[in-house]
């Protein structure tokens, strides 16, 4: 497989984990493509409510989702949001990070679709 670690998403790690089974990777990608938008919505709703506990939970929840594809930039943004949520302050900063998260996640989704379509 060509080096696919240059973008935001890596499929090589998950492909190795699935013992080379592309069918399983594609099932997982399909789940991710359904879940990631739901996670983003949950985070935005938590921010709109301004409830720290909910912000912490929803960002932590999404960390698991993105960790599957080694999306370290997304993990880092979510980690920052979670830590700021724990401090109970800087809601404005968390909202800015959320904008970055949405942008990065959108790009990651496009990248993953492109890799799947190009038979990674």
């Amino acid at each position: 497989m060509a080096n696919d670690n240059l973008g935001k998403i890596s499929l090589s790690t998950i492909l190795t984990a699935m013992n080379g089974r592309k069918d399983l990777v594609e099932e997982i990608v399909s789940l991710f493509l359904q879940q990631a938008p739901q996670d983003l919505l949950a985070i935005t709703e938590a921010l709109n409510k301004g409830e720290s506990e909910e912000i912490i939970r929803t960002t932590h929840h999404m960390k698991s989702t993105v960790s599957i594809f080694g999306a370290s930039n997304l993990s880092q943004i979510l980690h920052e949001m979670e830590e700021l949520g724990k401090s109970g302050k800087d809601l404005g900063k968390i909202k800015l990070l959320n904008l970055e998260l949405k942008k990065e996640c959108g790009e990651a989704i496009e990248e993953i679709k492109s890799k799947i379509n190009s038979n990674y």
Partner: protein
Amino acid sequence: MSFLKKLFAPKNQKTGIVFIIEDNATYSKTVEAFIKANFSEVKNVRIFPVGETCLPELDKNPDIIIVDYLLNSKYFDAESGLEIIKKIRSQSPNVSIVVLSSQQEIDVVTQLVKTYNCNYIKKDDQAFDKMKEMINTFYKS
């Protein structure tokens, strides 16, 4: 398994059952797929999004329980992974427990490993390699 079978079963007998306690559906199904793709010894994988629901099932004698440390990030009223681990340990003192988490605090990790005799794996891009090694070691023992 009947009482007599349990009594006379070799101590190292494996059931081929693995439990996954994880409230993130994508992650739990990924772990399930990973196990099925790599371990023919595992005949049955059960997923429990809510930790409490696995406790009545411990009599199935799972070989390994993979559990998320936080666990109540989706179902807010559910017990945390740590509380579930404590309850699992009280009912099944010898089951192998693997805790998965993006938890980074070393104190928490140390507590899990020492106090509850768990294995800990961080949810990062090496998680599946480490899980593979751990599960391989278990089924070769």
